[in-house]
């Protein structure tokens, strides 16, 4: 299971890559594996909107499951990955790269402290199994 060391994670299997005060959000390798073949992605937030941490930003569907993706931090949406809905399979093939979902302007950096680092996420997954 690929868990890049430079990202932060949530217990709902989202990741966030922090670059200055910009966060990029997607779902983890573990999550895509659990869902299996992703057939549908809908991003339900739009550029310019402001959202709170924990609000839903995207919906994913595989043949056998559905998942809501939540924002790990609060802030203004800077960009959404417009090409992802046309290529949902990217979530399976490149969850940490091309399958990013939204970029967000991090409003309160202290919210990041509540997230898991790579080791913490690994431990969390191990406990779940």
């Amino acid at each position: 299971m690929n868990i890049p060391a430079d990202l932060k994670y949530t217990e709902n299997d989202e990741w966030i890559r922090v670059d200055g005060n910009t966060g990029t959000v997607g779902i983890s390798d573990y999550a895509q594996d659990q869902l299996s073949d992703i057939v549908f992605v809908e991003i339900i937030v739009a550029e310019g909107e402001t959202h709170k941490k924990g609000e839903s930003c995207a919906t994913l569907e595989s043949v056998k499951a559905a998942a809501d993706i939540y924002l790990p931090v609060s802030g203004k949406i800077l960009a959404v990955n417009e090409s992802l809905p046309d290529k949902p399979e990217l979530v399976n093939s490149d969850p940490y790269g091309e399958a990013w979902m939204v970029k967000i302007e991090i409003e309160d950096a202290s919210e990041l402290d509540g997230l898991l680092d790579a080791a913490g996420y690994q431990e969390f997954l191990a406990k779940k199994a």
Partner: protein
Amino acid sequence: MTEPLLCDLSAPGRVAMRFPEPDVPLAELPSLLREDLPLPELSEVDVVRHFTRLSKLNYSIDQGMYPLGSCTMKYNPKINEAMARLPGFALTHPLQPIETVQGNLLLMYELQEWLAEIGGFAGVTLQPAAGAQGELTGVLIIRVYHDARQDFKRTKILIPDSAHGTNPATSAMSGMQVVELKSDERGNVNLEALKSHCDETLAGLMLTNPNTLGLFDENVIEVCRLVHETGGLIYGDGANMNALLGVVRPGELGIDVMHYNLHKTFSTPHGGGGPGSGPVGVAAHLVDFLPYPVVDIIEEGDEELPPLFGLVRPKQSIGRVKSFHGQFGMMVRAYTYLRMHGPEGLRMIAEHAVLNANYLMHLLKGHYHLPYDRICMHEFVVEGQWDDAPDIHALDISKRMMDYNLHPPTNYFPLIVHEALMIEPTETESKQTLDRFVEVMLEIAREAHETPEVLKSAPHITPVGRLDEVKAAKELVLCCGVGSPSD
């Protein structure tokens, strides 16, 4: 060979069905006239052969055992079909004056009474169209009951983790907050977990009993007492009523409201996914909230005259849940079935449904892992996986069963058992049929260890093999001639 679609069979100019020429002067046609009507053009022979060939691609109860857990796929008597088609029933209009449909109303009245007697309830509505709609009706009744008492805080519904997916969906649709309750190690509702949720926000608890593990909840009396003491109500999911006919009346155990599935317990056919029928029974304190209309006697009879039946609206009714009076054709079938059984016959159904399930469970034990080793009711769950056959999943076992001309059990449900195979034989299968089922299951268990590839590639003898479900969901083709939105 693949059967063509209707649109591919069409040949311009072919006509199967003609109507008489108009016997009245023609009126001018309206301006909102459709330009074209590209429906297929077929002959009667085309139509009959197309659908007959399609029918042969289906597995059905009429062909063999159909052990889907929680679906109660029992034999559907042919007499039911004949009775529902009597012109006196089939050719009556739902809005006829009640004086002209006293037969229908009598039948509905008696069916209400009999279902109430079987379930131990004070009143029954026949209106809900299916189990899920019955459930929604029941949860709305719970909500409106609390509202009527000005007890608006009660919005929490407790649902055990072994429940059907419909239970949480129904509660959410009714504006309730869903809280999941863990089962204990014997498969019962966990009483400690329940106690921690018993407060002034508790609207009710949805209980499937026997539950989806096929186990009768040993704490049921205590569960009902705890919920009632705190002011909540108990919803009973009656999907598994086949185990309880003449055995126990859920209303007497403390269930306040429960739906029945006429298409499971009372032998009306599943028809490939409907029509069903989901009557709801309620205890005395909820009778006024039933959806309208219900059938009642509106003028008592005497020595000469029979009583007059009519359609009435309960005082605090939640409203109408369906147009007209419900799936009446299904009621005629269930009435016929009940009339043929009587009280002893009903108990015999439950006893033999439970006998068959326990017989199968005992013969499979040791070959398939049994997560809850207790006397079961009408169904039981085994695991479709072995540590020493790591590639094999429940799905592979199911697909392989088709090669032996058997329908698989319910897969991957309940969620609390890994690789679940949920098996419900029903009372209408004989010992010979069950013995053959066991023989096949043991053979498949052997294959799983010795020649697993034969399971992974199954089924082999069915009209089609395993399907590409990802393609179906990604490249949506949902009707003839209409392609995916992306092309």
